[in-house]
């Protein structure tokens, strides 16, 4: 009986799955066009899945092995099942392979079940709780029906009742694993995830050591193009596809500083809300952690309805979007390679450019950027006042230099001016030929862009690019990772290609070249805080640590450091939009510092310095790497070899601070 039933069941499930797939594809196609090479993407899929995706999944070893067994077993079992039971090709090795595949899958599903017994808070419950049982149903029933096929059991084994029961389990397994894959069950992640990897909007992020972190520019010349994302259908189709790939693993949630601070943001829920939006409906079925302080079930949306309501509630509330610090911890952690930050900024763009609803100090900061080219509204002519006694060479005078020192808006901030002075001292000690733009420099546009004001960003960027084009230099060096990121990764699309170095990278290079010498470190224990825009955005984790090592400092790492570093709370305009939570992000970070036992935290970003220094009752001192280096400078042993005039240049440097 089963021999006749099985092909019918299998092909019926496959047929329904194809219909479901077609419906799902139609949902994604509501999005705006986005040109991606389809065939090339599909060809790259296996590599992206096996290498790039597993690189992320592997951070959790048990889960990684579980997934390999379950998913690998399933894919093999599904293909073989179609051959063996669908087409009746049980002879020879195929049947045995199918037994092996389904057994592997069963072992995997045992681990899935174990993890579901006491699931961590970040995992979604609901339908996900039945997944291990469904996996077992599929693997066990396939195993059982294959036993007679390979001749271990007689074909007429057991009672017809047993056969009927087995058929029911097969239906369950097929229902979840094949039908559910395209009709919206937990297994949807496999179908959407595979296509998402193939048609990813940032193909350049795949491959060893590659990253793609710059925001994509809005085309402001096309007046018909929407400014940002108002409704789910304003996302590109492959962004919608990406949202649909989410497995609700909650790794993003566990890393999100805003969520930990009790601000109304949870990146996982945000992605799920986008899925609700693209299909239409309410978030009542969501079975994970909510946005802190916002009960589930009160929001709803449609593909062509607004995401943020002008009045009342729609899919998400504006404060959810404004809580994000754009720290990319979620993106770094997401095994499905979903781009949360792109989506958040897209929606912010609409709020700022179309509605003029940048919260709190947002409007004031943007007005300042428009009128004075800096967020604080300071007189642009005073950008170099902190260096009145330093005699910094101006690009306008020298026209070319080896290094263009980009000051950033920290030039207006008294705390950061100390860092800048230290950096100048270091550069002079190493006899670097550098110059500054001085009053010709403008804000890089980082904050404007992350507040969604693409127009002001592009205006600042284009003017900066024009200014930079007047001069010749080999590289830009800056102590501001935000400027570093924007100049290095975001100006390119607007026509400005530069080689940019963070000051820690540059100092490390100078040290390696023997151009700096340091007195041994005598202070207490030190930890290092990775700035998001240096680490996750630009992959620079080593240079700052190398500099500290050269200073004789042994870094006491915090639990969350390197690519898992926790944000200081200063990015993405978050201090400006200032969405209240239960805790403050910088307080949590200084607590991390405290737990490391360090007495001093070395940083490499003016934002981090300001945020961490703003913590009351902190147990550690906050110093920029440039300051530590400047304090430790001693004359180089090889100084005799340098000719007299250069030595003089070195002397003035000592009077700098």
């Amino acid at each position, binding site marked *: 009986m089963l021999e006749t039933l099985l092909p019918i069941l299998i092909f019926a499930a496959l047929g329904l799955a194809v219909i479901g797939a077609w419906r799902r594809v139609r949902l994604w196609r509501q999005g705006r066009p986005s040109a991606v090479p389809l065939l090339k993407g599909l060809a790259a899929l296996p590599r992206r899945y096996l290498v790039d995706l597993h690189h992320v999944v592997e951070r959790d070893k048990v889960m990684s092995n579980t997934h390999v067994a379950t998913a690998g077993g399933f894919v093999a079992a599904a293909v073989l099942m179609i051959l063996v039971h669908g087409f009746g090709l049980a002879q020879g090795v195929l049947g045995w392979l199918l037994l092996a595949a389904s057994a592997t899958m069963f072992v995997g599903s045992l681990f899935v079940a174990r993890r579901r017994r006491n699931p961590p808070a970040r995992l979604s419950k609901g339908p996900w709780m039945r997944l291990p049982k469904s996996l077992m149903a599929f693997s066990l029933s396939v195993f059982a029906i294959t036993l007679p096929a390979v001749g271990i059991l007689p074909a007429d084994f057991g009672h017809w009742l047993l056969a009927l029961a087995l058929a029911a389990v097969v239906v369950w397994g097929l229902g979840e694993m094949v039908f559910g894959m395209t009709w919206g069950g937990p297994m949807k992640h496999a179908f959407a995830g595979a296509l998402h990897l193939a048609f990813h909007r940032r193909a350049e992020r795949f491959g060893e050591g590659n990253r793609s972190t710059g925001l994509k520019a809005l085309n402001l010349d096309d*007046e018909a193009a929407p*400014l940002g994302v108002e409704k789910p259908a304003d996302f590109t189709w492959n962004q919608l596809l990406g949202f649909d790939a989410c497995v609700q693993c909650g790794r993003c949630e566990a890393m999100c500083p805003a969520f930990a601070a009790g601000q109304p943001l949870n990146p996982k829920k945000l992605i799920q809300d986008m899925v609700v939006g693209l299909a239409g409906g309410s978030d009542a079925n969501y079975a994970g952690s909510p946005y802190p302080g916002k009960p589930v079930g009160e929001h709803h949306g449609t593909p062509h309805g607004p995401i943020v309501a002008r009045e009342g509630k729609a899919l998400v509330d504006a404060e959810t979007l404004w809580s994000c610090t754009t720290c990319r911890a979620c993106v770094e952690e997401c095994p499905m390679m979903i781009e949360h930050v792109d989506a958040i900024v897209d929606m912010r763009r609409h709020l*700022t*450019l*179309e*509605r*003029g*609803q*940048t919260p709190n100090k*947002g*409007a004031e900061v*943007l*007005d300042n950027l*428009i*009128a*004075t080219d800096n967020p604080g*509204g*300071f*007189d*642009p002519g005073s950008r170099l006042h902190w260096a009145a006694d330093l005699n910094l060479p101006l690009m306008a005078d020298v026209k070319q230099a080896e290094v263009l020192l980009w000051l950033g808006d920290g030039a207006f901030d008294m705390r950061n001016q100390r860092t800048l002075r230290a950096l100048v001292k270091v550069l002079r000690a190493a006899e670097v030929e550098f110059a500054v733009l001085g009053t010709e420099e403008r804000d890089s546009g980082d904050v404007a862009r992350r507040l969604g*004001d693409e*127009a002001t960003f592009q205006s600042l960027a284009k003017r900066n690019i024009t200014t930079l084009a007047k001069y010749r230099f080999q590289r830009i060096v800056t102590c501001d990772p935000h400027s570093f990121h924007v100049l290095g990764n975001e100006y390119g699309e607007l026509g400005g290609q530069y080689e940019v170095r963070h000051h820690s990278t540059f100092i490390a290079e100078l040290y390696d070249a023997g151009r700096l010498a340091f007195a041994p470190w005598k202070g207490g224990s030190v930890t290092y805080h990775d700035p998001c825009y240096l680490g996750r955005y630009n992959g620079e984790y080593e240079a700052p640590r190398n500099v500290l090592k050269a200073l004789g400092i042994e870094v006491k790492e915090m639990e969350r450091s390197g690519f898992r570093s926790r944000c200081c709370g200063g990015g993405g305009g978050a201090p400006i939009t200032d969405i209240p939570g239960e805790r403050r992000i910088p307080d949590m970070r200084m607590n991390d510092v405290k737990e490391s036992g360090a007495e001093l935290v070395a940083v490499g970003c003016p934002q981090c310095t300001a945020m961490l220094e703003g913590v009351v009752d902190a147990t550690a001192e906050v110093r920029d790497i440039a300051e530590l280096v400047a304090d430790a400078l001693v004359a180089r042993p090889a100084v005799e070899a340098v000719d007299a005039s250069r030595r003089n240049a070195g002397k003035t440097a000592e009077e700098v601070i």
Partner: protein
Amino acid sequence: MRPEQQGIEVAVLVSVGRHPITGRARRADQDARGLELALGLERQLPGSRVGLLHAGPRSEENESALRGYLGMGLDTLTLLEQAEGSDAIPALAEHLAAAPPQLVITGARAERGEGSGLLPYALAERLGWPLVNGLAAVEKVENGVATLLQALPRGQRRRLKVRLPAIVSVDAAAPAARQSAFGPARRAELAATPVPAEPDRELAEWQLAPARKRPKRLKIVKAASARDRFKAAAAKAEGGSGQVLEGVSAEQGAEAILKLLNEEGVLR
């Protein structure tokens, strides 16, 4: 029974502003507050209509500044196009008289040009309408009479009833302007009508020089303790040495003023 509140027609006069630090053209702060007040009125009195009016030359710089107002959520701005240096008052008065709105709102003082703050007065005089300055809020409009709240120094408010049509001017006491959004600003229309330019003859005769900061009288505080110093700093300015002249002739008044100016060293 609540008396019927009807929507009214509001015209907001806007100018091209000037940023106090960089001098870049922008939406003028007071005019933007005026528009904010008008938009609030539109919500308060359903059926009201807000129109934007500017008289002046059309240039790229001016246009982007004027679009700053449109970004607050309006579709059009009526631009009475004039040559640089023309007198805006006759053009505005003529335009307003041709299709009179019930309420005209304007900033108290322009940020560039003369900035004398006389425009609302000159317009009121020409049109023969009442003028209220320093407006803080429009409370209600009933049967052609508006109840207004006027801002006085130190946060005091005065309630006034004014028969419409009227002109009101706003200063920093009015609600702060909402953010201007790029999209609506870019899409909105500048409806330009050329108007005969009457050169401002008086202005042409003037000599213009960059303004200097007005000297501030130094408060000389003799205080022994930090507490006294703080009290002195926080105390409100007292016009202790002032003198009220009542029932004096014009000559006597002028003499008193002259004497004061000499004492203060303004005239030497």
